[in-house]
């Protein structure tokens, strides 16, 4: 044990960072699809669907991601479903991100003024046409900045995938620190790498916000 930081360690960290990016993309795509469904379900004309979706959101938003990951990876096999670490991480992140993005997007859809719905209705557009042609295009514009902002949280939260065996950035740093015992140095490096991944995304979301003149009211995880 011991030694000092060498190029192998840095390569190991870089590999971890790649997993961080990969998992983030999976989370964004999977969570995005789930979030879309959740958002539509939350404003569904059917009461049962609305309640179901609201319950899902409440449950997921009240549970730490770590626990969700754990229960997905180790809780499904006894039910006869085998999951690889990648599947487990993807499913958990999808379920988790879907709940948050769904809520964010529902807010955006609802913030399109009611008069726009009525105007579209008055023009005899069907419900689907109203949604697709009038409401969603406007909601997408509103939703872009908070969605990009939430991306930052996804990037940081993928660190919890270590529980299913992923050696992503944070876990890679931990493993190296456990060999070298240089916590200050190593965590500083990790902080810098995360910052380098997240800051451009934050900046982008701010730029988008500024271009819409809309203050940020979205929620972020720590």
């Amino acid at each position: 044990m011991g030694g000092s930081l060498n190029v192998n360690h840095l390569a190991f960290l870089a590999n971890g960072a790649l997993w961080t990016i990969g998992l983030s993309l999976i989370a964004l795509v999977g969570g995005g699809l789930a979030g879309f469904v959740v958002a539509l379900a939350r404003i569904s004309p059917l009461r049962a669907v609305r309640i179901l979706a609201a319950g899902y959101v409440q449950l997921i938003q009240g549970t730490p991601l770590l626990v969700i990951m754990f229960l997905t990876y180790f809780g499904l096999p006894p039910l006869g479903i085998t999951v690889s670490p990648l599947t487990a991480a993807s499913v958990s992140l999808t379920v988790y991100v879907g709940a948050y993005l769904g809520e964010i997007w529902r807010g955006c859809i609802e913030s399109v003024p009611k008069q726009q719905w009525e105007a579209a209705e008055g023009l005899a557009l069907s419900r689907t046409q109203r949604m697709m042609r009038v409401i969603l295009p406007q909601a997408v514009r509103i939703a872009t900045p908070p969605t990009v902002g939430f991306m930052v949280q996804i990037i940081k939260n993928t660190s919890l995938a270590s529980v299913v065996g992923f050696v992503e950035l944070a876990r890679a740093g931990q493993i190296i620190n456990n060999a070298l015992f240089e916590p200050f140095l190593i965590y500083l490096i990790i902080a810098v790498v995360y910052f380098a991944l997240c800051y451009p995304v934050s900046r982008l979301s701010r730029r988008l916000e500024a271009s819409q003149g809309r203050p940020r009211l979205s929620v972020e995880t720590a």
Partner: protein
Amino acid sequence: DLLDDVMKAKKIRIATDMAIPPSGMMDSAMKPTGSDVETAQLLAKDWGLEIEWIQTTGATRIPNVQTNKADIIVSTLSVTPERAKVIDFTKPYAALQSVVGCLKTATVKDWADLKDKTIAVSRGTTQDTELSNMKDRNLKLARFDDDATMVTAAVSGQADCVASSATIVNQIGVKNPGRVFEPKVPIRNFDLAIGVRQGEPKMIEKLNEWIAANLKNGKLNEIYKKFHGSELPPEMRG
């Protein structure tokens, strides 16, 4: 049957936490190393198997074998009756010599001197359980999630005493020459065993044979000495 499956596949999946030096860790080329790692490698070589490492964290060692994501655990598992209700253990292949270590300069001789001192310990380890049960000794424990964080706390000055293996206690001074720790108060020795999910008697039997043979021929002792700096207890070496 687990043993048949493993032999048929010519591959064994071994769960090890690579973040608990000196049992499981990464060398400077980022390859797995440590006493548990070499023990597992010896086993695989003897049985003519290939190893697939299953990286675990402290919390996921057991669920990994329970849910058949790993075949066996070689990861400083110490045997307690409570744990034996959940998984099956082999005969011990090594022992953990637990001590309370403090700064060399500290005047600590016995348990009474440890009163009111904060002792860092790895959460949920047998040392933790042991010290937690010493209610009448008024110990103050600070529990960390793993050995590495605990050692880091000691190295950085957040803790002045640690309860761990003698190996780890000695390691602190290597990392920070300004804070040399030495074993002060022995706790006791714990047996370390290989974990297998319940209901696999053939696997347990075969592992026990292997352990007995390698304790006898001194190979396990050699590995232990290489990483921990001391020999296995004599009664174990047989």
